[in-house]
């Protein structure tokens, strides 16, 4: 009895004193939970499709992403061929007109889309048979009607015209063109290239590119292995095609000093700045994760990065300043920048270049690397909320030959990265000059950005990234 009494008394006293919580101290975390995910299943169909299945029955939906196995190469004088082919895949089949197709897709509330390299379906499980019927129809029987070809070409003509008012689109074109000369990534569609594309080219291209051989089918959601196998056999069992073309491309080399490129946008109140350069890194390269961490310290996202802290939080030059690391199958590039008011365009360029130089000259502090690792670990954990993520892991391991436990040990690999590692990475991949400095903006700023060019000459580009003489 006495014990009970004392206990109540104690509780009473504790409550009394803790009535007001201590706000001066940041709360401590409780025990961390383990982060885990289920392995995906892998199997290959008789006609060569590599299937990656990630079951998830949380909601009654299924998505299927069919990715062709070929590697897109040069389009030469017909730049835009792939893009237009992609847009036309849903323009009708031997069985269905475009109107019928659109109606049937919309009727089941599905999303079905296609590009030159993939076909994607997402729908409720109860409509899966119907969805697959439509998906397989466009994949195997797209028939490219002339009327739709003409219409899409007209659409592109208008789109190409509207580039002139779209600073981001112009900056993107310029970036591709100057980073990747003599490389498929450097090709941009123009009115001239559009005019040279013929319907026959599209049909031939489709025959060459769309094939089960080497293709991946990534299935995510409310479906099990047996159901998936049966459905694939039913809807894609008869699909045949040629061996995928796998051309190889060299990494571009850039050693012409800092180059300033300017694209005029009359009336602009801000400049779009992109400071960019290609890197010798591709999907599957072993330095990817370290380069990723370096980019994140620099400006890869979040409020705490160097670019954001310097150009937004300290100088207030911009709403946001970021750097992007792009690693693709045939090459990679880094691009840093944002939107800056006219008056500070040159100062912003100077600051971004200074920040690039700091990566080379100084060792990254433990505090910064600690913050970045925490952000990345958080992103990784949060990404597991989406069921697509786990399937993407399996796809990357399979396609790029990553170690089987790459994602299982991701957090450990991340944690093991040291400041010295990052300095090594910076020295290997970040140039000290040889930056492409791309500015889309008002003519009034051209004089002020000359000084960043190694020979003092600003190269003027058109909206497609081509040099204007």
């Amino acid at each position: 009895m006495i014990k009970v009494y004392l206990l109540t008394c104690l509780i009473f006293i504790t409550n009394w004193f803790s009535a007001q919580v201590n706000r001066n101290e940041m709360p401590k975390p409780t025990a961390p939970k383990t982060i885990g995910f289920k392995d995906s299943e892998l199997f290959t169909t008789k006609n060569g499709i590599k299937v990656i299945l990630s079951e998830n029955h949380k909601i009654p939906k299924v998505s299927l992403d069919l990715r062709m196995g070929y590697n897109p190469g040069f389009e030469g004088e017909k730049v835009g061929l792939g893009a237009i082919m992609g847009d036309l895949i849903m323009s009708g089949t031997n069985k269905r007109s475009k109107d019928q197709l659109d109606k049937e897709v919309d009727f089941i509330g599905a999303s079905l889309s296609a590009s030159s390299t993939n076909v994607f379906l997402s729908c409720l499980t109860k409509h899966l048979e119907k969805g697959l019927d439509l998906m397989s129809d466009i994949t195997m029987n797209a028939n490219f009607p002339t009327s739709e070809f003409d219409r899409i070409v007209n659409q592109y003509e208008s789109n190409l015209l509207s580039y002139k008012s779209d600073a981001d689109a112009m900056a993107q074109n310029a970036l591709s063109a100057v980073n990747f000369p003599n490389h498929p990534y450097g090709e941009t569609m123009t009115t001239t290239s559009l005019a040279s594309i013929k319907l026959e080219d599209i049909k031939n291209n489709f025959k060459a590119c769309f094939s089960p051989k080497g293709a991946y089918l990534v299935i995510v959601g409310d479906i099990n292995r047996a159901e998936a196998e049966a459905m694939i056999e039913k809807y894609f069992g008869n699909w045949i095609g040629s061996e995928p073309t796998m051309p190889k491309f060299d990494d571009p080399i850039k050693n012409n000093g800092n180059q300033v490129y300017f694209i005029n946008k009359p009336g602009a109140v801000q400049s779009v700045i992109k400071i960019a350069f290609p890197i010798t890194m591709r999907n599957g390269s072993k330095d990817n994760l370290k380069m990723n961490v370096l980019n994140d310290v620099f400006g890869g996202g979040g409020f705490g990065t160097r670019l954001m802290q310097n150009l937004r939080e300290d100088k207030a030059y911009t709403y946001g300043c970021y750097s992007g690391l792009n690693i693709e199958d045939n090459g990679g590039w880094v691009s840093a920048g944002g939107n800056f008011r006219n008056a500070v365009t040159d100062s912003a360029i100077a600051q971004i270049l200074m920040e690039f130089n700091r990566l080379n000259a100084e060792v990254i502090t433990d505090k910064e690397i600690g913050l970045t690792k925490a952000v990345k670990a958080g992103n990784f954990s949060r990404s597991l909320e989406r069921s697509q993520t786990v399937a993407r892991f399996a796809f990357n391991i399979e396609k790029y030959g990553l170690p089987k436990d790459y994602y299982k040990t991701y957090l450990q690999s991340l944690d093991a990265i040291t400041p010295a590692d990052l300095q090594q990475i910076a020295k290997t991949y970040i140039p000290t000059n040889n930056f492409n400095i791309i500015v889309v903006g008002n003519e009034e700023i051209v004089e002020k950005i000359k000084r960043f060019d190694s020979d003092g000459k600003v190269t003027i580009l058109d909206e497609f990234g081509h040099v204007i003489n």
Partner: protein
Amino acid sequence: MKNKFIVALTALCSSTMFAQTRINFIEYDLPNGIHVILHEEHSTPIAAISVLYHVGSKNENPTKTGFAHFFEHLLFEGTQNIGRGEYSEIVEKNGGTLNANTSQDRTYYYEILPSNQVELGIWLESERMLHAKVDIKGIETQRSVVKEEKRQRVDNQPYASFITEMFMRAFPSHPYNWVPIGSMAHLDAAEEQDYVQFYQDYYVPQNATISIAGDIDVESTKRWINDYFGSIPSGKAINIYRDALSMSSTLFKSKYGFSKKKINLDNLNNTKNKKAKDLITSLSNTPIEIKRTTKDTEKIRGVIVDTVYDNIQLSGLFMAYKIPEQTHADSYALEFMNEVLSGGASSRINKTLVEKKEIANYAASFNYGLEDGGMNIFLALANIDHSLTEVQNEFDEQIRLIKESLISEEEYQAVLNKFENSIVGGNSTVVGIAESLADNYVYFGTAERTNQMLENYRKVTREDILRVANTYLTQDARIILNYLPKKK
């Protein structure tokens, strides 16, 4: 045989149990008036912690537009216990992410954190509510940052001014007259007193809803909410506390008649001085009168046609009709109507304007619903060699058709299927669930609406769609903005 039977049974079940996946939640009020909504699910070890303040640009002083959004930026600067620049760093350092947004009707803040850091998120948001702290450097920096945001999102974007231009004409006498980004000149004119007043008027417990979703333990979450938010003074008492922190001794004394030293800042309710204690008790019991706006009832007078010259290549047509507040029963039918007109490739507007007649490069319609009223907007970018008159005529033809006869059974079913697909697929992230629950509670009166969306759409009939088309698509009262390229 057995298989067949099961298949048939499952088919039966799925057609009769045609319902969305339920989002379970609990909700309650703290004594100081904060509404709390908690949704527990353990699929991923993360949690979203959010606070919705029922204040937006429509609560602004007409000579200080853009203030609510600017203020949102300032509330990342720091608090009494969190130094400048540390707020976001704390979140990111702990593996989380954060952001906020401001609309005409609300200001919404959230963090997504690993689920062992829920207490941290609650502490951060309670700090933001109780005693945010902003210094001159912070104000000046954010003022410039917001201006850059406006240049980037509005001034330098083709056609982006149409929202501002539309609201200006559609709401001449309601504070929807201006949009959240506001005016740069007004931002320059903002003074310290404006910040203090806005904080004291709207960032108070009774105007806030906490919504937390994810891998949480309900009991400890409730306890933390009680510790950090329950201890925030209620009614007008929160502002005597804030004044004691921010005002000079002299100023405080002249406002309240006693020295601020008399107040126990660690625990307001434990204030010993009788005069101070009496005042605090009385202020605690006096709710703050939050200035609410009223529903907009003003009709568009006639057909307003204007031309806007912009840095564009393709001409654009933007057309608006007034529609009632978002809680109006007709809102579902209006959404339905817009899906028939412009949802998906098979929709009427896409099939005609874009595909068959090739007049437009892009064309769409949608309803812009808000707390006090809204607009139904049609927009299209004309293809080269086609005029805005052609676009206008074709829109008018589509409007005539949808006002003239019932939509087909097939169109009706297709739209319902589309709603089902997006509702089932929606609510798939904890941050989305937290937001949906809070929004539905504050603006629609019940968080349960999150679970009723499909039902709400299913109640709409084809006759309803015909009726709302005729009621709201008034050809003699609308706004037409022609966007033309600036002359060189």
